[in-house]
């Protein structure tokens, strides 16, 4: 499992063209016909056969331990054993990442600072599809309903991934990779019931069309109960939803793969009448010409509709095409370059008087190019990687995001790495356009005696936020049973977006006193680090501990709530133990330091699973066990916050 798509060569990059897809398909065809069929392995012994590699596609991936970036990979096993029902709750164990529940149906997730419900510096990709909203520059975690059983791994990169992933991969990238349909054959039924996790269920069936083509279909539903108000009463934020997905994996040859997937999610809350609907479809073709060269072509379409009675009705249609090509140049250079285009159309409709919609339709075009050279200066010892991503969008124009990384392996068991990069966060539609006017205070009498409501408005003067990041890391694996991972960083942010003073008055009844978004002149900075230690005393037992430290200095007199939006100290202890062949026990202890107006908390999660034969598994899960309830976020504008209660649920999994 320790293989990942690295920064130098992400398997998940996107942007493509139809013509290129056609060319590649034809090329793949040609290649297949040229394949020799004369039993080349007939005379090999068992030992020799065991030395043959079969998955050429992984050749350009590299070992986790060699990567020049702060990266954590959660495997399918770790994800399932977390006992969580939602991806966001799984991520709580990742060092350097802060996950906070805002309410039963909202999460905020951020790496290395800046966490609130509008956290905007983390890019999230699911199988290469960006689930980052260009409207508010963030992730709607509620409509990200992944069936955790189908997730192969989650790669979490702290620090900028902008050289490859582009704008908005500022503080980190979360890359979710779901399993090949070939690996999810047969029927899988899962159901759970409990107090907070009231009920949920999923049915999957995986089958084959022929010996090179496999599929799976999946459908499920869930209901989650209310969180709590500070006085212990239910917060009325219960919600429920349904989802379905289909995926087909076609392997025409060892070195080619075609994936097509489509899915839909629909979620809604009862009380404040919010509902969200997402449909998406994606196709990706991967073709290797040799161990060092290959192409990847991808296209996806995504439609996200949200009707939020507290905010507005929104709909975003995104079409994304991308292509990338890798090749070796001489013995020492591996070049990867790619092109991409993304079109997003945003439509807005007003549904209350708190959030006025002023301009109902927005269109954005994003073109991008990246190139990267992985220079193996001393083979297997020292690798230097340099690259740049150039993007052009129709509001801030060109954006340059260069980066340089170095990985040095003094011994086979140690890696020292360093990286320096520039990343940008482009302004959201909310920030740069005249889309919204959001009430931000009490009405007051203004010029001419009229009544004016102060409202946040977008401004076309807003520029991109900029980050210069410097990172250092060290990994050490003294034995196969011990793994140490250390990373430190210094991030300097310029042009952070904030709110300026009143810039003008628009007439009306009441009128609008405009408070435009604006860039701070002064720079902000964050410093900190993460350390993680994993020990496996036996093959059936793994223990890990991690500690994350963060200091934030932001410009502005009222910066404190933002400086303490993420915890200064965070500790996670985990134990994952197969007590017997049938019985597994997972425990984790989490400490999260205080935030502005939110006390620190220490809590624990437990999961006890019993396997009956090979077909059935029962699990009992307790989450947030150490207190009746605790808050994880401070109230934010237009965002009521509720507290996380202790929860217990039981689950049943049946495979056949």
């Amino acid at each position, binding site marked *: 499992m320790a293989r990942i798509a690295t920064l130098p060569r992400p398997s998940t990059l996107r942007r493509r063209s139809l013509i290129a897809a056609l060319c590649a*398909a034809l090329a793949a065809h040609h290649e297949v016909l040229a394949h020799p069929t004369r039993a*080349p392995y*007939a005379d090999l012994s068992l030992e020799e056969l*065991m030395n043959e590699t079969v998955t050429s596609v992984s050749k350009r991936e590299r070992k986790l331990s060699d990567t020049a970036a702060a990266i954590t990979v959660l495997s399918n096993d770790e994800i399932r054993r977390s006992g969580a029902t939602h991806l966001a709750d799984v991520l709580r164990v990742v060092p350097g990442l802060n996950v906070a529940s805002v309410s039963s149906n909202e999460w905020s997730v951020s790496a290395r600072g800046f966490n609130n419900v509008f956290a905007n510096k983390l890019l999230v990709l699911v199988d290469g599809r960006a689930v980052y909203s260009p409207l508010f520059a963030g992730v709607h975690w509620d409509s990200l309903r992944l069936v955790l059983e189908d997730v192969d791994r989650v790669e979490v990169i702290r620090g900028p991934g902008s050289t490859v992933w582009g704008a908005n991969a500022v503080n980190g990238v979360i890359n979710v990779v779901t399993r090949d349909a070939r690996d999810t054959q*047969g029927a899988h039924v899962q159901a759970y019931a409990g107090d907070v996790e009231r009920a949920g269920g999923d049915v999957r069936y995986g089958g084959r069309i022929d010996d090179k083509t496999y599929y799976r279909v999946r459908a499920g539903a869930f209901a989650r109960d209310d969180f709590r108000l500070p006085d212990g009463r239910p917060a009325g934020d219960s919600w429920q939803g349904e989802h379905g997905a289909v995926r087909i994996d076609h392997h025409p040859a060892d070195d080619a793969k075609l994936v*097509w997937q489509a899915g839909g999610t629909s979620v809604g809350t009862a009380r404040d009448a919010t509902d969200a609907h997402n449909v998406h479809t994606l196709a990706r073709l991967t073709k290797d010409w040799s161990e060092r060269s290959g192409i990847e072509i991808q296209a996806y379409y995504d439609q996200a509709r949200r009707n939020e009675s507290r905010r507005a*009705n929104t709909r975003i249609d995104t079409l994304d095409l991308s292509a990338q090509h890798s090749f070796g140049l001489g013995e020492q250079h591996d070049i990867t370059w790619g092109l991409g285009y993304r079109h997003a159309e945003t439509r807005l409709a*007003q549904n209350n008087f708190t959030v006025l919609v002023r301009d109902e339709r927005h269109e954005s075009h994003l073109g991008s190019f990246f190139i990267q050279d992985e220079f193996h200066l001393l083979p297997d010892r020292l690798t230097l990687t340099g690259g740049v991503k150039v993007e052009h969008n129709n509001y801030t124009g060109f954006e340059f995001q260069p980066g340089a990384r170095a990985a040095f392996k003094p011994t086979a068991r140690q890696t020292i790495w360093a990286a320096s990069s520039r990343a940008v966060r482009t302004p959201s539609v909310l920030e740069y356009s005249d889309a919204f006017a959001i009430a931000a205070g009490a009405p007051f009498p203004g010029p001419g005696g009229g009544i004016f409501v102060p409202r946040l408005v977008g401004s076309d003067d807003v520029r991109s936020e900029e980050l210069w990041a410097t990172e250092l890391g060290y990994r050490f694996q003294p034995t196969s049973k011990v793994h140490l991972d250390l990373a430190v960083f210094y991030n300097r942010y310029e042009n952070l977006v904030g709110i300026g003073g009143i810039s003008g008055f628009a007439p009306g009844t009441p009128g609008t006193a405009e408070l435009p978004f604006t860039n701070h002149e002064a720079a902000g900075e964050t410093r900190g680090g993460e350390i993680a230690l994993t020990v496996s005393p036996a093959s059936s037992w793994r223990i890990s501990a991690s500690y994350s430290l963060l200091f934030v200095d932001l410009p502005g007199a009222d910066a404190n709530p933002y400086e303490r939006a993420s915890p200064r100290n965070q500790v996670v202890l985990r134990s994952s133990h197969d007590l017997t062949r049938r019985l597994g026990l997972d425990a984790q202890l989490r400490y999260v330091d205080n935030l502005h107006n939110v006390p620190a908390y220490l809590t624990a999660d437990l999961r006890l699973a019993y396997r009956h034969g090979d077909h059935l598994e029962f699990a009992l899960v307790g989450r947030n066990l150490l207190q009746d309830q605790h808050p994880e976020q401070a109230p934010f504008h237009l965002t009521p916050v509720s507290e996380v209660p202790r929860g217990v649920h039981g689950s049943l999994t049946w495979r056949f």
Partner: protein
Amino acid sequence: MSAAAHLPPSARAHPLRLPRSFALLALTFALPLLGLLSPLGAQTSVSKEYQIKAAFIYNFTRYVDWPAHRFEDEASPLLIAVLGKHQIEQELSSLAKERSAKGREVRVILVSSVEEMAAAHVLFVPVGEEKRLPPSIPHLAGLLTVGESTEFSRRGGVITFTLVADKIRFEINQSAGERAGLRLSGQLLKLATVIRKEP
């Protein structure tokens, strides 16, 4: 700006319709079909993975002893069966033309029923075909079952291919082998991950 404010708060249903998005949707739906064009004509090749697995299966026959009654006489062939239709059959067949196993001629057949399987000495069960197996594999006495999925292993198959990093390994369920009346050599067991699992 005030025009928008006149919308009734109840205007929650999105008023916007997008014929163009359907075109985009159709486009991504159509894209995989383009790719399918090529492999349709390419059924003649066997992937490296199955070339290697076929060679493994040939090798296995050297390290396994079948009960004597499974062969009519010294000259009767060794029968390798593939469950369902699968590319590995081609590779096994071309191997069969070139060499023998345990001094016997090798024949490769495609099977789909329990009756057909029972005649075979080796049965390969491709991933996705496990459900065609009888509920209890041990009833197939004297049959070396080889598969490649956890589902196969779960149903009591004898040898299961696994993938470790990018190399093929195999797991042997020793109790399944014993129930099938097969003698697996120590040399073979040494290279395998040996498990003992009752069905």
